[in-house]
């Protein structure tokens, strides 16, 4: 059973070690607006800025370059840097889209990226990071379903940036936006399946 919980609401009368909570006076309270899973004793934030983790794959856009150190826009409020090494691609220019992995997070405000590769053409869509898991689906099922139906290449970054190219990008965008808007309403998988099927019939 999951229920919606808001900041300041008590989740436990005793000290509990749980993400997104804090302890005061021996009791545990929620720090965020989220879904409280009583069974698994955890809080899933429903919204909120993305929390970068090492090894997360992200989509980013080169914003500035200085001495082979690139500042990358990944929608993160701190600094995001890509340091090009010997085995990486030579150089990027401002406006290039890349897929990269988080190597390190310093002091929660500087992200270091590694293993970058360029993505040519296409466009970038932004969704709320909290919805990314739903867009990807269990074992990538959701994103694959959309990609096949729209015949679009899609790469989803954990930071909420999604790169798409080719095929029916408008359809892929609509499906992803629908997931973002309706992630909390049960039966989403069916509705997306229906939307994709109807659209293909029309072609």
């Amino acid at each position, binding site marked *: 059973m999951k229920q919606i919980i808001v900041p300041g609401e008590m989740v436990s009368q005793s000290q509990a070690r749980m993400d997104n909570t804090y302890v005061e006076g021996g009791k545990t309270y929620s720090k965020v607006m989220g879904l409280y899973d009583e069974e698994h004793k955890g809080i899933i934030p429903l919204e*909120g800025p993305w929390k970068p983790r090492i090894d997360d794959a992200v989509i980013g856009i080169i914003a500035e370059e200085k001495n082979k150190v690139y500042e990358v826009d990944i929608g993160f409020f701190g600094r995001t840097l890509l340091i090009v090494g010997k085995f990486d691609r030579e150089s990027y220019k401002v406006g290039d889209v890349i897929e990269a992995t988080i190597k390190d997070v310093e002091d929660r405000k500087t992200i270091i990226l590694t293993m970058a590769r360029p993505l040519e053409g296409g466009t970038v869509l932004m969704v709320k990071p909290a919805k990314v898991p739903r867009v990807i689906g269990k074992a990538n099922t959701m994103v694959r379903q959309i990609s096949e139906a729209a015949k679009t290449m899609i790469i989803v970054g954990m930071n909420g940036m999604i790169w798409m190219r080719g095929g029916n990008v408008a359809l892929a965008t609509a499906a992803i936006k629908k997931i973002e808007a309706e992630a909390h309403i049960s039966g989403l998988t069916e509705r997306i399946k229906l939307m994709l099927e109807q659209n293909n019939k029309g072609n």
Partner: protein
Amino acid sequence: MASENKPELVIDGKRTDGRNFNQMRPFTIKANVIKNAEGSCYVEWGNNKILAAVYGPKEVMPRHMMEPDRAIIKCRYAMAPFSSLSDHGRTGPNRRAIEISKVIREVFENVVMLREYPASEIDIFIEVLQGDGGTRAAGITAAAVALANAGIQMRDLPYAISVGRIGEHIAIDFNMIEDNFSDSDMPMAFAPRNNEILLLQMDGGLDRAQVSKAIQMAIDAGAEISKAQRDALKEVYSNNTSGV
């Protein structure tokens, strides 16, 4: 205000709009209303119509204001030039609005977990589209919902209400007329978990017993306001809505 034209604020034991002294005006709270914002909230409180929105955490501008270990909060409270029943107002915040912006900011500097977002800024905007007394209280109540809607971590969800004195009566939630002609007005904001007072302003004249009574009245009204805030947030995720 000149007291020559002072209207009757109490008629047959009731207030100008028929309320009892411990009665708040009817209100509605709706979250997630501005598409571009990270979080937002629209409140109608009596005749007040107030929009609150949150942006951030984002890069601090100008850079010299940045705090390396925590977020800074910026708050703008302003009234639309068409917000009052009297003449056209000036555009942009005046001195009153700037002071209100500051005390509201201080409420959220208390509850927001600033250290979660180092070297960033969180912007809170409160726009009074229509005002009828108690706008800073309704604005704080709305801004708290907007912050939660944005997923910003907070230790609590604050609410605010104002209480004042009309003659010998302590009354809650003044409308504009009461605001202008009452004997004392005291807006307050609370962190509901332990009823900690996060905003307190007062002018006029109250004895100590009246101050205590006013604070208690505000705390007693809090449960209803907090519930409406929670319901507004839960509504965003109900099966009936798909958000903005």
